[in-house]
């Protein structure tokens, strides 16, 4: 059984992080350059960590499967980044951001982690501004803010509808600075395919060069995974097509615990699915809910009518009606479920009936078209490109879609997994968002982890290992891991079955969406748990992967990732089945209040479930880390 020690420092909540930094072990500057750190991924978390570790003097190797570190999917985040600056003088504070985030996560995150996140949030904005990130400004030259879901203050900083892009390019520029300085070495088109564990410590990776097929071993004193979430297990999602779970999944199979896989986030405002050929879903930023009003017709008979022909009195602004104090800015899990509910009642709009209106008519009347264009112009453009509809004139149609995963590899307060030497940052870990993430908090967490947390905590581990004792890549553990990678590639290529990788991925995604999506129940989850292994078996026998392993082979890349999704999907359903309560993004139909709100069970489930791999033939072990709330009182989450 894995030992889950959270290593949360003692002392009052507000002093834990500063005390911990002071009490952490340090590595002296002359010794830092003797340590090698591998960073996998160069999104917000990976790029900021690589750059900062490089600045500190460590020797860093950064691996990305893209052609350039600037392509990671952080780039697609639209709306903004939260920070407790209180520049608006509207009552914000570190404590309020902390409380909103804990409550937003439905009381399923660690207090100490979340408090630290809120604490460093202000520094992130300072850092990004100094890097030249062109945040939106007011005429006086100071920074502008907007509101996001789950908050009653304006604390979100933004750069038009491209905040993620600008923050990532800032982190990428910082990385370029360190590449120029020679402290970081970057490997593009290189995918991590296994973690190497020596004597219980993470000491290296096996990677494949995607252009030449070459398989290479890399040893290091510590390995940092910043490889993002696993939402593409659902096939259709707002993730980039290449985003995948392979790095964290293979680390799981090497002994790292996987925490709360069932905490998945369905985002309420995405463009609805239009056909079977669809390859991905596109998000419409939550920031639109600042000014857009969400509604459906009251009468199902009106659902195919021209929206302009439906009078005010016949419209149901259901979020404003059900949650008057937060209205259209209710958190994501709640808004998504509300949308599902009205569609289930037959009141959904659009051809498929799976859609609700996001209407800007009032905002345009109040602010004028120009102001609306300035705030959201690029989002209206994206909407137009995809749907061929003009949202300045007709309401947008939106529907929930798979968007983010709160679950991930288990880490302690130092962001180190139960495998010593393995650190996990950003969306790839489970740590800060509990069962539901608030809008504009993913960018905050990615950069907090990379710029400030890991650089402060990694020395505690490194100080315990001697730099000259890094195992050579000739160590048998490297050979064994490499052989496993080679075997899998050989198996996939040798299969020559009759179905494409894509067809399997679609079928798995559909199965998960139906049984483990926005609403889950015992019967459905059990059914999924029966069907997934059968489908996985068929995949092993009948998949067709063309081409060779000696050059660029995109089918082969995807085949390996989908093989991992089959295993991950099973763990996801298992976790959802075992968590017999509803909380945040995990909604079990059996556990709800009469008004349809999620019913938590704090007595039995106020804990983190961290799954431990037991080999291919035995079910994984469910370890438990209790969540202790000393500062906040656990309450039923209400946005009414």
């Amino acid at each position, binding site marked *: 059984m894995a030992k889950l020690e959270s290593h949360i420092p003692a002392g009052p909540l507000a002093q834990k992080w500063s005390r911990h930094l002071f009490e952490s072990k340090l590595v002296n500057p002359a010794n830092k350059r003797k340590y090698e750190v591998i960073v996998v991924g160069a999104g917000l978390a990976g790029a900021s960590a690589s750059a900062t570790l490089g600045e500190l003097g460590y020797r860093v190797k950064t691996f990305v499967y893209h052609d350039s570190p600037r392509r990671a999917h952080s780039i697609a985040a639209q709306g903004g980044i939260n920070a407790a600056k209180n520049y608006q003088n509207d009552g914000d504070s570190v404590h309020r951001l902390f409380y909103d985030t804990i409550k937003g996560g439905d009381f399923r995150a660690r207090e100490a982690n979340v408090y630290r996140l809120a604490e460093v949030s202000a520094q992130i904005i*300072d850092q990004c501004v100094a890097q*030249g990130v062109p945040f939106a400004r007011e005429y006086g*030259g100071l*920074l502008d803010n907007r509101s996001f879901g789950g908050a009653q203050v304006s604390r979100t900083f933004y750069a038009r509808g491209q905040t993620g892009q600008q923050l990532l390019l800032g982190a990428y520029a910082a990385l370029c*600075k360190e590449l120029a300085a020679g402290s970081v070495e970057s490997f593009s088109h290189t995918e991590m395919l296994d973690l190497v564990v020596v004597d219980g410590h993470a000491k290296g990776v096996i990677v494949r060069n995607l252009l030449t097929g070459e398989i290479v071993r890399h040893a290091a004193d510590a390995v940092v995974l910043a490889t993002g979430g696993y939402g593409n297990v659902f096939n259709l999602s707002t993730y980039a097509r290449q985003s995948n779970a392979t790095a964290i999944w293979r680390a799981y199979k090497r002994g790292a615990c996987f925490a709360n896989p069932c905490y998945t986030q369905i985002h309420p405002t995405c463009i609805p699915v239009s*056909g079977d050929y669809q*390859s991905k879903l596109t998000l419409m930023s939550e920031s639109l809910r600042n000014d857009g009003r969400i509604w459906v017709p009251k009468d199902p008979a009106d659902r195919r009518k021209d929206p302009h022909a439906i009078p005010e009195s016949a419209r149901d602004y259901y979020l404003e009606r059900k949650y008057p104090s937060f209205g259209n800015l209710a958190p994501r899990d709640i808004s998504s479920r509300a949308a599902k509910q009205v569609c289930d009642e037959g009141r959904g709009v659009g051809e498929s009936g799976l859609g609700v209106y996001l209407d800007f008519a009032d905002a345009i009347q109040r602010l004028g078209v120009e102001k609306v264009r300035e705030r959201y112009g690029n989002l209206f*453009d994206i909407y137009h*490109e995809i749907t061929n509809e003009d949202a300045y004139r007709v309401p947008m149609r939106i529907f929930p879609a798979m968007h983010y995963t709160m679950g991930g590899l288990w880490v302690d307060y130092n962001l180190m997994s139960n495998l010593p030497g393995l650190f996990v940052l950003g969306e790839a870990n489970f740590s800060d968002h509990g069962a539901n993430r608030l809008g504009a908090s993913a960018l905050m967490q990615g950069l907090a982890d990379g710029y400030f947390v890991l650089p402060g905590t990694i020395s505690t581990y490194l100080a315990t290992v001697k730099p000259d004792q890094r195992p050579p890549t000739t160590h048998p553990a490297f050979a064994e891991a490499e052989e496993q990678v080679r075997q899998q590639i050989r198996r996939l290529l040798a299969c020559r079955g009759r179905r494409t990788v894509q067809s399997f991925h679609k079928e798995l995604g559909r199965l998960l969406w139906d049984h483990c999506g926005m609403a889950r129940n015992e019967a459905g989850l059990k059914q999924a748990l029966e069907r997934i292994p059968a489908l996985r078996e068929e995949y092993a026998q009948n998949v067709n992967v063309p081409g060779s392993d000696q050059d*660029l082979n995109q089918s082969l890349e995807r085949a390996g990732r989908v093989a991992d999704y089959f295993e991950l999907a099973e763990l996801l359903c298992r976790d959802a089945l075992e968590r017999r309560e509803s909380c945040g993004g995990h909604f079990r139909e059996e556990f709800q209040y009469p008004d349809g709100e999620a019913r938590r069970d704090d007595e039995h489930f106020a804990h983190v479930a961290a799954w431990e791999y037991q080999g291919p033939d035995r079910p994984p072990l469910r370890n438990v880390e209790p969540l202790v709330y000393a500062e906040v009182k656990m309450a039923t989450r209400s946005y009414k």
Partner: protein
Amino acid sequence: MKVKLKVWRQRNADTPGRFVVYDTPELNPNMSFLEMLDVVNEQLTLQGEEPIAFDHDCREGICGTCSLVINGKPHGPQRGVATCQTYLRSFRDGDEILVEPFRARPFPLVKDLVVGRQAFDRIMTAGGFISVRTGSAPDAHAIPVPKEAAERAMDAAACIGCGACVAVCKNASAMLFVSAKVSQFGLLPQGQPERYRRVAAMVEQMDREGFGACTVTGSCEAVCPKRISLDFIARMNRDYGVALLRGA
């Protein structure tokens, strides 16, 4: 609708390439251009052939991974969008569509429609940053930035680094890409200390990579999916001139 695709297929940089014709199955006009390629690739796989290699990732026009020259135009017929945001409703039933990679000497061909764009990373590494260490930044409000400057810097910063500007240019010039980065920092107070050193270093690296000179035909601006303005090239030329005079 159905279309006929003439697609550039090339095993690698050392093997000669050629156009191969594919007749698509029935398509939906609401499909994206890349989804059509997905469908063709599914078919090829089932026929035991190797699918067409092409670059793509976010499929929402922001990561800059997708490329393709469609009927002679980088990113296809529509202005101001990337290939992944090109939809089949921009074409007609029965159209013959030519699909090629971005062609430029500094972008070596990898396979089929995939080219290497690491030259851009090397230009960025030469100076495309503001040297600020993590943790050393002053409060974000310490230096007010006029809204106009911030907006203009954002116009430049919107560049997605796709390389269409290079692919369309008869000289394979990277001036639009480089000038966007140079201008973003040059317009902001934070970027002033390194302003001239930066432009000199980036232009020098750009030349070293083999990108050509700019003759201001403006084709780059016309195909840029983010509509980056040619004005930034003028701005960069001015900064570069000053840098030379100062001996930066």
